[in-house]
């Protein structure tokens, strides 16, 4: 579940993940249920996005969108 297209824009699946998290930080399990995507794909996607600085993990193992993630989301 790659996050970014060749032209630097977010993939559709990455947009779906980021826009869902932009409303409310949540766990991978919650996100998987919300967007109806298998948990393994959500975990993989969040790991990629975290390594790219688009999301970060909170103390209670929820994910939230970073400023960099918001910028990319608004492109």
């Amino acid at each position, binding site marked *: 579940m790659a996050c970014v297209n060749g032209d630097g824009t977010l993939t559709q699946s990455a947009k779906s993940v980021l826009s869902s998290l932009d409303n409310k930080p949540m766990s991978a399990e919650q996100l998987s249920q919300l967007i109806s995507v*298998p*948990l*393994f*794909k959500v*975990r*993989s996607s969040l*790991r*990629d996005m975290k390594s790219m600085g688009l999301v970060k993990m909170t103390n209670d193992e929820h994910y939230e969108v970073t400023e960099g993630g918001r910028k990319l989301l608004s492109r």
Partner: protein
Amino acid sequence: MEYNNNQQEQQVISLPRIGDPAPAFEAETTHGTLQLEDFKGSWVILFSHPADFTPVCTTEFIAFQEIADDLRKLNTELLGLSVDSVHSHIAWVRNVKEKMGVELTFPIIADLNKDVAKKYGMIMPGESTTETSRAVFVIDDKQIVRAVIYYPLSTGRNMPEILRLVKALQTTDEHGLATPANWQPGEMAIVPPPKTQEEADERAASDEFECKDWYFCKKHI
């Protein structure tokens, strides 16, 4: 402890046994980079095939896709693997959709360097040193290997049996019962034999089970 090259090779191609923790991996797939850990909480059918764009494998992948929804209802994900590139996998998946009308929705590992294949003993050197055989590893939600099936290059696998196997394993976990030969969901399951004389006497006198003898009892689930 010193190993010669042959011993080292023997070591890396041995397969994980039933009851062992499934070897961890991170791999490039048609759905991006996946780790085995990503599947924690779900059961996984990790299966290998010899090569993309081959007829038996194509029939198998279509057949795996046909049971994907049933497996999903059992909290079970499919994960394919072969020693091909991710671009080959993508082209094959597109070809299967175009020519056969079937969309393959599960990820396929591109194991070009054979890292995962070696960890799981998927290569049978006596048959082929370059292709993975038709291996199936059933891995449970705690990432323990629960069953292993191997088929040779020439023989396609039987999907109803794989589905039945997952259902049987999950039934065992849920009810603490075993399943007899040719068991199908809805049929009676086997009660583990008693371990003491007292237990055997109580079992024989009980009407909770359907017993042929003290050691051979079945129970409706």
